[in-house]
């Protein structure tokens, strides 16, 4: 029953003027396979209207339904005592103590950023921000993981410039500091760049807002920007058949307005401080469709949406366009009855549109009305339960052969090899990028970009620090997805640990190629298996995430890239440490075992031109033991600087610490380690850290007691990086090489 | 009626955006491009039929908001 006496199940909806007949081509243009369309017919009991077809198309798209990835994502650990909300909501929620919760998620905006880098990246940031503040959290930090193509590729420079400007343009205007991230370059991304944006926000644990609608009859309210034709794909429009005025109806690229989103953020937070919200959801991908559908579905209810009441930016918009528009900066709210005026006042103060566009029903159907006519009528539960879920065939990538250090040439010139690595695109300073991001607003940034392995911001109202990172080593994942997946989680865990914080939870952004290819599906499966194991052993559950598939051009897929975003807490931010070496006379201690693993190392790639070998193995028990030890030493105030080892291995990590802090060191390979020197210094063995300590003896003694390998390499001091018997390089030379590459690359003329 | 307002930088005010545009054009294979100045174009729909009145009001709009007269000039064109 609808509540207005009309038996909706029996009466088919009214078609729109000039609505085309649905043909197999139109079905295909909507991204539905013939089998999927058969399911639609079975659910509907009749041919759908174009609007209804559009809704199925959106809800059953890969992005909204996770149809290719769901079966695998289920294998990820998602629980822990500190997890308040795992995957399934707009973002994940964890308890960080003192009645506070951290709410966070990472999302991709890959394809749009390739087409229009500034707006693609900007709207990506806008979207993830909304996902976090829709749950009641004021965002306090942004991070991003960017993957670009070969620097020599003609489009790369333009993409870097646009993406960075877009991220900065949106985040800076919103007033949220962008405090960390990573940027890599590889030819595999030439046709498909990756823009993964992460936001972390803070909310009181007793004031978190969810999407599940409740209360039959409660009003459905639209707030934010007016709806235009952004993001609607031309193919599905068949504009000449809908209307004569096809020129004016050409769909547009999504354009973000961070000023409006800032107003929306403040208005929403103001509304959230009252007691009138029942449920709230942002309008992201598939806009009004996915938000209204999910709110009703989660609440086990139905909804009537009166589309003619939707605030419109363009003239002549039709229900199809209104349901599928991806205009930015809009939210959907279910209010308590009778509170509409109170809410409206807040949005009017902030000069935002506010419209009651429908209400909840008990029919479990989504009913769309247009000037009194019913133009869409879909049963909600079957659309959810019958949504396609694919168990796509997969083949695992076999583990490549281990590279023996003896088969890898040592550098002819150690100085040149270090300078070349430090100035290589992946390792070079990214200051050109993050100086375009306001990383200081809110006055809580304790560790600035490149000053530590994780970003660290103070949580207002106390001494707590929130450590955040984004990490992944795609070349490892390509070589052996399971190891790469394990390593990505382990490295994110190490990053948080290295600043002294306790790692709490993960948000994963899975970027892969075409899942209909078994080897790609196998990459996904392998990565998930590795990630799941690491999350389990490290007590590091996944609380939110995103999947981006089909990142390939002309059959060439990207490197499989499971970006791991992570958050941790340090109770007293004054105890946190960065990686800058600023004092002389400190002992430089290497934690963890070094066997000299050169397979898939940057040295092997950059110096020898080889991308081969098995990636370094990850022993999770060792990771845990070594990391917990490092954290304990930091807590005991024995650590002045700490850096976990990753790309480039030990020598690169030491160089990074030295130039960041302006203090050199004199060190040597320990006598009893008989690994060839290039393997010792450039190998990328996992589970390792460098600690600079004024009480190195105590650290080493404690390490041995804990069963953690630890050895003194030397002492800090001077203005050079000296490795006895191998090289002596002035820090100024290293710094110059490190800092020159990116600005030089970006300002070079064609 | 429709009004078109052009807001341009005064001579002598440095225009780094114009400079960047000029250099980009040169690099794209248009060496004949010399100095470039970038300005703003604002189109307004006015509910007014008297041209003189409209001109006077637009003048005020420009001085009050549309142009920063410290560094910008403006010109007004009425259409229709």
């Amino acid at each position, binding site marked *: 029953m609808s509540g207005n006496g009309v038996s909706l199940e029996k009466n088919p909806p009214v078609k729109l003027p000039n609505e085309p007949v649905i043909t197999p081509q139109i079905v295909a243009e909507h991204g539905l396979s013939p089998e999927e369309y058969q399911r639609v017919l079975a659910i509907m009991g009749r041919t759908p209207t174009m609007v209804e077809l559009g809704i199925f198309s959106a809800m059953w798209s890969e992005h909204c339904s996770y149809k290719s990835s769901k079966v695998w994502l289920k294998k990820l650990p998602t629980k822990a005592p500190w997890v308040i909300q795992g995957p399934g909501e707009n973002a994940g929620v964890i308890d960080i103590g003192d009645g506070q919760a951290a709410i966070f998620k990472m999302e991709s905006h890959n394809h749009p950023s390739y087409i229009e880098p500034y707006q693609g990246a900007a709207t990506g940031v806008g979207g993830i921000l909304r996902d976090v503040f829709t749950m009641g959290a004021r965002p306090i930090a942004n991070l991003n993981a960017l993957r670009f193509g070969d620097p020599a590729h003609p489009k790369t420079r333009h993409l870097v410039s646009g993406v960075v400007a877009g991220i900065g343009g949106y985040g*800076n*205007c919103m007033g949220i500091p962008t405090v960390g991230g990573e940027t890599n370059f590889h030819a595999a991304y030439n046709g498909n760049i990756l823009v993964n944006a992460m936001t972390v926000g803070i909310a009181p644990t007793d004031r978190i807002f969810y999407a599940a609608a409740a209360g039959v009859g409660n009003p459905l309210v639209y707030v934010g920007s007016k709806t235009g034709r952004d993001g609607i794909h031309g193919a599905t429009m068949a504009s000449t058949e809908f209307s004569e005025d096809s020129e004016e109806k050409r769909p547009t690229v999504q354009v973000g307005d961070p000023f409006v989103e*800032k107003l929306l953020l403040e208005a929403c937070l103001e509304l959230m401080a009252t007691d009138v919200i029942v449920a709230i959801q942002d309008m992201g991908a598939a806009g009004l469709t996915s938000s209204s559908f999910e709110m009703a579905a989660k609440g086990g209810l139905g909804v009537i949406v009166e589309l003619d009441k939707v605030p419109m930016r363009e003239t002549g918009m039709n229900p199809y366009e209104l349901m599928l528009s991806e205009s930015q900066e809009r939210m959907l709210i279910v209010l308590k009855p009778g509170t509409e005026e109170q809410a409206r006042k807040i949005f009017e103060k902030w000069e935002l549109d506010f419209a009651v566009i429908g209400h909840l029903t008990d029919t479990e159907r989504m009913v769309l009305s247009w000037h009194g006519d019913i133009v869409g009528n879909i049963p909600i539960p079957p659309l959810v339960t019958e949504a396609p879920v694919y168990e796509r065939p997969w083949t695992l990538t076999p583990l490549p052969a281990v590279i023996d250090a003896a088969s890898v040439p040592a550098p002819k010139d150690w100085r040149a090899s270090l300078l070349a690595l430090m100035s290589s695109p992946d390792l070079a300073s990214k200051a050109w990028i993050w100086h375009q*991001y*306001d990383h200081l*607003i809110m*006055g809580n*940034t304790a560790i600035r970009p490149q000053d530590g392995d994780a970003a660290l911001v103070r949580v207002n109202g106390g001494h707590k620090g929130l450590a955040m990172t984004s990490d992944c080593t795609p070349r490892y994942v390509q070589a052996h997805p399971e190891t790469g997946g394990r390593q990505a989680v382990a490295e994110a865990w190490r990053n948080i640990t290295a600043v002294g914080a306790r790692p709490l939870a993960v948000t994963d952004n899975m970027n892969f190629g075409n899942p209909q290819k078994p080897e790609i599906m196998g990459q996904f499966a392998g990565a998930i298996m590795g990630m799941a194991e690491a999350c389990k052993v490290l007590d590091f559950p996944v609380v939110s995430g995103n999947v981006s598939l089909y990142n390939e051009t002309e059959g060439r897929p990207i490197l499989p890239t499971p970006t791991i975003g992570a958050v941790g807490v340090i109770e007293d931010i004054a105890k946190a440490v960065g990686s800058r070496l600023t004092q002389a006379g400190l002992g430089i201690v290497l934690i963890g075992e070094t066997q000299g693993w050169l397979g898939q190392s940057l040295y092997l790639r950059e110096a020898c031109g080889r991308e081969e070998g098995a990636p370094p193995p990850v022993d999770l028990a060792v990771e845990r033991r070594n990391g917990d030890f490092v954290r304990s030493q930091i807590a005991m105030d024995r650590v002045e600087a700490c850096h976990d080892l990753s790309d480039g291995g030990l020598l690169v990590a030491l160089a990074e610490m030295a130039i960041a802090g302006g203090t050199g060191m004199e060190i040597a390979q320990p006598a009893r380690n008989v690994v060839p020197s290039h393997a010792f210094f450039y190998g990328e063995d996992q589970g390792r850290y460098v600690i600079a300590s004024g009480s190195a003896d105590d650290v080493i003694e404690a390490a041995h007691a804990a069963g953690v390998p630890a050895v003194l390499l030397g002492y800090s001091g001077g203005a050079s990086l000296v490795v006895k018997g191998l090289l002596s390089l002035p820090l100024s030379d290293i710094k110059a090489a490190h800092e020159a590459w990116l600005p030089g690359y970006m300002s070079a003329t064609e | 009626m429709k009004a078109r307002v052009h807001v341009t930088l005064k001579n002598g005010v440095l225009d*780094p955006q114009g400079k960047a545009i000029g250099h980009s054009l040169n690099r794209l294979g248009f060496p004949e491009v010399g100095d470039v100045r970038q300005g703003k174009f604002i189109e307004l729909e006015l509910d007014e039929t008297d041209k003189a009145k409209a001109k006077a009001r637009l003048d005020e709009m420009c001085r009050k908001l549309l142009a920063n007269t410290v*560094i910008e000039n403006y010109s007004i064109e009425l259409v229709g």
Partner: protein
Amino acid sequence: MKAAVLVFPGSNREGDVAQAIELVTGRKPQMVWHGDGDFEKTDLIVVPGGFSYGDYLRCGAMAALSPVMAEVKKRAAQGVPVLAICNGFQIVTEAGLLPGTLMRNAHLKFVCSDVHLKVETSQSLFTNRYQAGQVIRVPVAHAEGNYFADEDTLKRLEDRGQIAFRYCAPDGTVDGTGNPNGSIRNIAGVFNETKTVMGLMPHPENAVEPMFGGSDGKALFEGLVEALT
């Protein structure tokens, strides 16, 4: 010292400066909405950083015409001190409270970075806790911080000691080194004629705690407390 911090649609550093003021005075400032043509009398008015009105048309252009700014102009004329930071500086130049204008950074990009500033004079409400010639380190975060004024205005500013801060090298040399945006004569901040209104592009409010970027900015707020209490 009672302070009012203005809030426009799009302001985003009002929280930072409120935090700094509370740190130094022990008292939260009053937050004043742009639509209020009147607000409680205070010893100090602060126009904070951000992207008021999205920086649309010109930074600060629309904010300068808001009801609250009309009241601020009145009070400034009566000698009530006004501290205008970043977007605030842009707003008060648009409002005519300070001479000159802020244009797009010469290198055309947003820049967030520490800069060194030379304090030009300690003879003001704002700078009395610094020494003339002292070099301080504070951050900037802006895309339109390129200060410009015509020659006559510049001469007047120099002659009357109205330059508050200049970008300099870490050792205090003013020769363009460390100028993050191309500002003419490396000008980072200026006073009005009576030195009761000061505008600057850098963010002293983000340099008040040693652990969070250094505390060279604290003395600016301490100076205000000293002068106005």
